């Protein structure tokens, strides 16, 4: 199924959840509310005609000073049908939470941990919500725009 038709179907199946949609350089994207994200992802994965069985990537973009500040981005693909789709979920700075999709795709686990580690997005219901690349006692989230390139002068406990 072509991505624009999938997006149309999402609008019918989950009324009020689709915020916006469009196409950028031939790649379709759809912006969603966060509340029913896991359900929508499950629907995308399990519906035979769509079958987005392959989650490529989860990440986030910091749009400071725009509001909502963050945008969590999911790239997915159907190995069978060859179509791909980009989901975007805007979240506010003071409430940077989205539901986890680890229950839908196993691979989401580390992607979400990385996004939490570097961007500070909290994935609610994540089975293992720890940092992954930075040390466990690190403060702050380095990929945020207000985090200085050289880091802060902090001392960390020895390993």
């Amino acid at each position: 199924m072509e991505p624009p038709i999938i997006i149309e179907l999402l609008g019918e199946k989950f009324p009020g959840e689709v915020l916006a949609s469009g196409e950028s350089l031939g790649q379709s994207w759809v912006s969603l509310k966060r509340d029913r994200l896991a359900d929508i992802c499950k629907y995308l994965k399990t519906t035979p005609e769509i079958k987005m069985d392959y989650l490529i990537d989860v990440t986030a973009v910091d749009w400071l000073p725009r509001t909502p500040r963050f945008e969590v981005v999911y790239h997915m693909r159907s190995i069978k049908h060859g179509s791909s789709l980009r989901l975007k979920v805007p979240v506010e700075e003071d409430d940077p939470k989205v539901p986890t999709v680890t229950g839908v795709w196993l691979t989401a686990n580390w992607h979400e941990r990385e996004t939490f580690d570097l961007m500070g997005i909290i994935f609610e219901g994540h089975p293992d919500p720890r940092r992954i690349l930075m040390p466990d006692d690190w403060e702050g989230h380095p990929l945020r725009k207000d985090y200085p390139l050289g880091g802060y002068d902090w001392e960390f406990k020895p390993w």
Partner: protein
Amino acid sequence: MATTSKEITVNMGPQHPSTHGVLRLILELDGETVVSCAPHLGYLHRGSEKLAENRTYQQIVPLTDRFDYLSCGNNNLAYAIAVEKLMGIEVPERADYLRTIVAELSRISSHLLWLATHAADIGAVTVLLYTLREREEILELFELLTGARLTVSYVNIGGVRRDATPEFIARCKDFMSRFPAKIDDYDTLIMENRIFVGRTKGIGIISYDEAIDWGLTGGSLRGSGVDYDLRKAAPYAAYDRVEFDVPLGKTGDVYDRYIIRVEEMRQSVRIINQCFRDMPDGPVKADIPTVSLPPKDRVMADIETLAHHFVLVSKGFTVAPGEVYVGCEVPKGELGFYIVSDGSSSPLRMKVRSPSFVNLQCLPRMVKGHMIADIVSCIGSIDIVLGEVDR
């Protein structure tokens, strides 16, 4: 007398020859059986994505060299294609073929080092001596073509850095004529080696559906029989103009992943030979003054070109606002670049979807229930590079 088993915790790495870099595994063992395995990453994290947000688009190319430092040509290519797509740049045909040649040479050199370390981990040390001999020849070819052996930065936005010399083409063709026989040599060393087969067959089995669910790519995905190769599914460079087969595994064990990568080397030779046969003459850089550097001999001759060169190197070029995701089939799997531009000369966000990071996630699932010695077979079979895992 009844005995009770007690689990012990063993720390493997980060300094361990079989973890292929600074990977640390916390193992829970029941005797020699692995109960659980928890990878700890980040020892090589250099913040490449943050650095990229503070550099011009051209300056990011050398950063990409440092992800998977065993196949830099592929990394440069994936990044360049992403930026070109964002800017709508058409690359000259000769550059497409040169890119394909460099990507496939990188693939062979990466697979050779993988084969060397994978076999050595399992006890077949001899293979290492043979594969590194051939890898050295490829590195010399890189030196001839690009001036660098490992971090080549050869593929640039808009084309490639410089044209191939007749000497490079002659030596590369010569190497390609000799190389398939060498692959047969490796096969005779390990393919039916009882110890190698005994330690790889039936180990770390990942089923078809599981492989997709874990997001595996590259040899690890195709080892489980999933027919998915981005060079076929979404062709880039000159892959749509060459013929090659995608080898597939049946059982999804360590042995299948080994067979596939060896076969991929043979296919790479096929691709390179076709590229040399079909490569047209012509320019190797897109003729776009705002992106491509002017010819070096003119930079020293007239002031306008010097100023042009200076501005391009120091200030870079701007990219229209937009976002793009491009995935390329690198030796380890799918390397993806998600670039968001806000119209300035450096990206607002550059996310690197690295295949090693995603494939490594599956390791605890692979080794669970196996013996501790099988962990090294499994790590070898997913072919990770920690520079790419940690970025």
